[in-house]
């Protein structure tokens, strides 16, 4: 049995390391996506790549980060001063804009240095090349989505691996920003590494390794304990994405959650086969979604680590929407499919523990990328944002309006920051009244955001719940689906949920995000 005092003390020490990394990354980064919207995560890993402690950042990164570290471990051999990066979804990444930077932590002994573990951080880059600016395209294979980075070394023996940097920068639209953000990611890992080395000096490598192991065991015990409180049984649910942007045929995700004594099996068998469009999730994304749901439902009040997932067995058949095969397109899998995986899991668990589960939230991130040539500043630009919506109502509370839910929690970009930096203008940013599902408790309202373009630009929309609706629970009504509209030369028309279009000067685009589902009959 691990020491219940020491484990608790070390938990604080290790989380503190991840938090300091996050503070450093946010402050030093260049792009508004990282600084203003905080679209990044930082974590500490043991020597085999288990995530030991993580600062509370973006849920979609949580379960998936260890697979990036493991991906690097499988491909590379590390020496002191080396730093790796990876974004390949088929080698531990999630989608290409998320670049994960991994640093080994070596501790110097008398004769040789010992590997203590890793620190890593993942940040969403505003552009990594590919067919459309912002690298969240309407793609049909991964090669269109951007520059694929398998595990490679960003730094070798403390020196920049210049060839890799040059190659990457030649393949992205805004290289200066990428350099700045990557340097910030390096700075974050550097401070994390220093702190871990300090801890190793203070307590000894072996003790620290044992402490990390104890922390994993502790999280596992805690998860088992809390799983034991759920009623034993098998609970099934299904829901669908609107389509993949090419064939507007719903893409169905099925799940059966089996709760046994202190264990759970999550089986996605029966889920639709992977599609041509980018709504395919790679396995790490599915894993993150499952980790998120159990963490919320069990009320796990501990730092997320790999131990939390040990009692949960996932069956995700290969070649389906929840475990895509190379080289299928995956850009929207991370941001949209992940949300629907959460929806079906909550729908299933609502049958097991209705008191703990809210109706469906907006179920999309309303991804919008705008790119082109900024004539004002004489440079190319790429801008990415996501828009909050209605949250689902609960048994005892109305759903919150105009917020991000579940797998993301990124901030909006202030209008006054955005208009200064990019050639478009926001005309309206408001709550979308009447969009929340009716019920004893009302679903939260979605948002309306209207863009006026000051020059032509390329716009890509990856939005879901434009056809299907966020479900209500216990006879509560569904939330309203979202809507995308474009006004050109005074004529307004609806746009599909997922599309890529050329927009002219003076065009006006309006995104209306979905409302959350209601709870209980009115």
């Amino acid at each position: 049995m691990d020491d219940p005092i020491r484990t608790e003390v070390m938990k604080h020490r290790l989380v503190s390391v991840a938090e300091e990394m996050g503070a450093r990354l946010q402050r030093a980064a260049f792009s508004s996506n990282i600084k203003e919207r905080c679209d990044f995560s930082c974590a500490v890993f043991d020597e085999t790549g288990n995530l030991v402690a993580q600062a509370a950042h973006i849920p979609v990164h949580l379960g998936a980060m260890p697979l990036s570290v493991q991906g690097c471990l499988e491909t590379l051999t590390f020496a002191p001063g080396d730093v790796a990066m990876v974004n390949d979804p088929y080698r531990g990444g999630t989608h290409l804009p998320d670049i994960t930077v991994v640093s080994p932590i070596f501790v110097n002994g008398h004769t040789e240095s010992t590997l203590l573990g890793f620190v890593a951080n993942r940040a969403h880059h505003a552009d990594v090349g590919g067919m459309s600016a912002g690298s969240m395209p309407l793609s049909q294979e991964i090669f269109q989505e951007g520059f694929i980075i398998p595990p490679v070394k960003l730094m070798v023996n403390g020196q920049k691996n210049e060839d890799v940097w040059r190659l990457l920068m030649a393949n992205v639209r805004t290289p200066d920003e990428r350099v700045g953000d990557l340097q910030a990611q390096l700075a974050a890992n550097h401070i994390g590494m220093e702190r871990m080395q300090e801890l190793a000096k203070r307590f000894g490598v072996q003790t620290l390794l044992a402490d990390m192991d104890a922390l994993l065991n502790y999280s596992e015990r805690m998860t088992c304990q809390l799983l034991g409180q759920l009623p034993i049984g098998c609970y099934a649910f299904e829901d669908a994405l609107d389509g993949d942007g090419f064939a507007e045929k719903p893409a169905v995700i099925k799940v059966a959650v089996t709760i046994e004594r202190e264990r759970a099996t999550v089986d996605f068998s029966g889920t639709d086969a992977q599609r041509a469009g980018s709504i395919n999730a790679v396995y790490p994304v599915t894993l993150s979604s499952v980790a998120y749901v159990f963490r919320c439902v069990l009320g796990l009040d501990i730092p997320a680590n790999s131990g939390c997932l040990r009692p949960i067995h996932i069956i995700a058949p290969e070649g389906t929407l929840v475990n895509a095969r190379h080289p299928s397109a995956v850009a929207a899998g991370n941001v949209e499919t992940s949300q629907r995986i959460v929806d079906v899991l909550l729908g299933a668990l609502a049958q097991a523990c209705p008191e703990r589960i809210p109706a469906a939230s907006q179920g999309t991130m309303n991804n919008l990328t705008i790119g082109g040539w900024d004539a004002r500043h004489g440079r190319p630009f790429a801008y990415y944002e996501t828009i909050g919506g209605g949250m689902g109502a609960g048994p005892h509370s109305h759903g919150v309006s105009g917020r991000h839910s579940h797998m993301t929690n990124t901030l909006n970009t202030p209008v006054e920051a955005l208009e200064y930096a990019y050639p478009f203008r926001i005309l309206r940013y408001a709550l979308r009244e009447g969009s929340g599902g009716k019920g004893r408790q009302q679903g939260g309202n979605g948002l309306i955001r209207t863009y006026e373009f000051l020059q032509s630009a390329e716009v890509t929309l990856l939005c879901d719940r434009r056809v299907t609706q966020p479900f209500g629970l216990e006879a509560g009504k569904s939330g309203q689906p979202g809507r995308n509209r474009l006004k050109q030369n005074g004529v307004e028309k609806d746009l599909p949920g997922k599309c890529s279009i050329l927009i002219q000067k003076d065009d006006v685009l309006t995104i209306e995000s979905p409302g959350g589902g209601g709870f209980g009959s009115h």
Partner: protein
Amino acid sequence: MALLMSQNNQQEFWIGIDIGGTFTDFVVYSPNNRSLERRKILSTPSDPAEAVLQGLEQFSHSGNRHVVHGSTVATNAILERKGARTAFITTKGFRDVLQIGRQDRPKLYDLFPSIPPPLVSREWSFELTERMDYEGNIVTPLEERELKSIIKTLKNQNVESVAVSFLFSFMNPVHEQWVATQLRAEGFFVTASSEILPEFREYERTSTTVVNAYVSPVLDTYLGRLEQEMTPTEFHILQSNGGRISVSQARGHGVRSILSGPAGGVVGARFVAGLAGFTRILTFDMGGTSTDVSFVNDEIRVTSEAEVGGCPIRVPVIDIHTVGSGGGSLAMVDAGGNLRVGPGSAGADPGPACYGRGGRFPTVTDAHVVLGRLPADGFLGGQMTLKAEAAYDAFEELGRQISLQALPGLDIRQNLALGMIQIANAHMERALRVISVERGEDPREAALVSFGGAGGLHACDLARALGIPHVLIPPMAATLSALGMLAADVQLDYVQTVMLPNDTTFEMLQLQTVGMVRQGKEDLFRENISPEQAVMTRTVDIRYVGQSFDINVPLTSEFRQDFDRVHQEAYGYSQPDAPIEIVNVRVCAIGRITPPPIPCQPLASPDSSSAKWEERSVVLSNRVEAVPHYWGSRLQPGHKVSGPAILVMDDTTVYLALQDHASIDAYSNIIIDVGAADG
């Protein structure tokens, strides 16, 4: 503030007043006989002014009162949502800016988030047709007629206070100013964002503007009443930035004093530490339910990223980090079998088990009793007797819930108590790291200044964990905040967002500060600050083009080099060839005041045996030993005490471990040389 007797030969009093949850503290200095007194009376939460007036009558009857006051009225108005009837007017399309905020939820893993409602409801949020672009050019002219119907609604609804915040008003305030003028003419209390915070980011600016509109009328009523009833010669209040400001200037700017409570403690800590020769300090204020920490590197560190009751405020406030860990924090065993401390707290009622008021669960305070570090008959200098048995019983019960093998020589209750202290310390060590290393400051060159009631038992262990060489515990630490009020300079902050390009010269930036410097001088003049006492500092917020956070550096001809250097220090890299943007220019106008002289005594011999009480069993880091206890009230300047030892003070108890050596300095501070960790 004149040191001389006034013309009518009345006695002069300088009075610092701090309102706490339980006590209202007074520090009263009389220049006539150079006496400095510290007094407390019970607070009157339903009407805080009552205790203030009572105390003034008692401690400064018939005299000229120069009062500095830290008020919690504005903070409470927000926390309890009991501010003025406030409306809000903004640019067409954006009335929901307060409802949407930054579109994030406060906790990631909470499926049912509870989000504090904005101070102004949607119904009282109004839009006017108007628009500026990012350079301040008028895109859509103001539809002046629309204001009429809004004014009508405001009057029908008996609205008192109106916040006006238009997009890009910091680049061109003409629309905002026109609306503000009209509303003022109609008798409303008006806060325009371009007056209170001409800085970009619409949500944060609007929130700050609305907070000001919401609290200022309430603060105004409170201060008006005090001013009328206590007839001070001079009346200042402490602001959240740690500077004082005259009541007449404070009244329209309630947002500036919103976090003045904890600010007094930091100013006081800086003052006493400075006298003792420490200019680089970590302040550590551990109370019953929470702990406040901050960093002072000669100057008090301020931030513009504070939040009160769910509302961001972007005026400079002292950078204080708070964690929910205090003497009353409760222990429990969680589902994974770990011992946890907090965030639950026994509060004041029932309080820790050892208070004997029915508390059954062990708190941090109970842990110290079980370890013998907090003598049951020496609490608050012996004013209150603790029930040690109740503390032991609480740990006995906890021991039944946990799987733990006690260390040799300790029983399970002592071992758990020791663990509880280690965990509470881990919480607070994290807080101290946030405020120091995460802000790029090295704690190893600082002193830890502890002034909370529960702090003395933790200060040395925390200092040791962070490599901090010295701990300072001031005398009468509990009234440090009231003393800080008297030591606070006059301070006024001004900011303007400018968004200037890379080729902006030093001279051009200086020009940008001219208006603010003039305003600062006028405001200081109104504060009766002579030109000799006035200090103007000019700074600029700079970032590399493309970045969205900025770094504040002094405005000198070297500003570019300084920026690269500070960036390098803070983030490990810099780009001297990359273009920069100048985001904001700032002016800080300071009026230096003379703080009250603190009595200084000659040092006696180091022999402290006259202060010795007795020896008792105390659990040290891993064993039990007989440890000498000292009465703090008998310790004299010059005395030295080596650990292990317990110093029983009137408002805190200090634990010295084996490696720690304390001495009493000429100002009666306890200065502790903290030894390194043992193994």
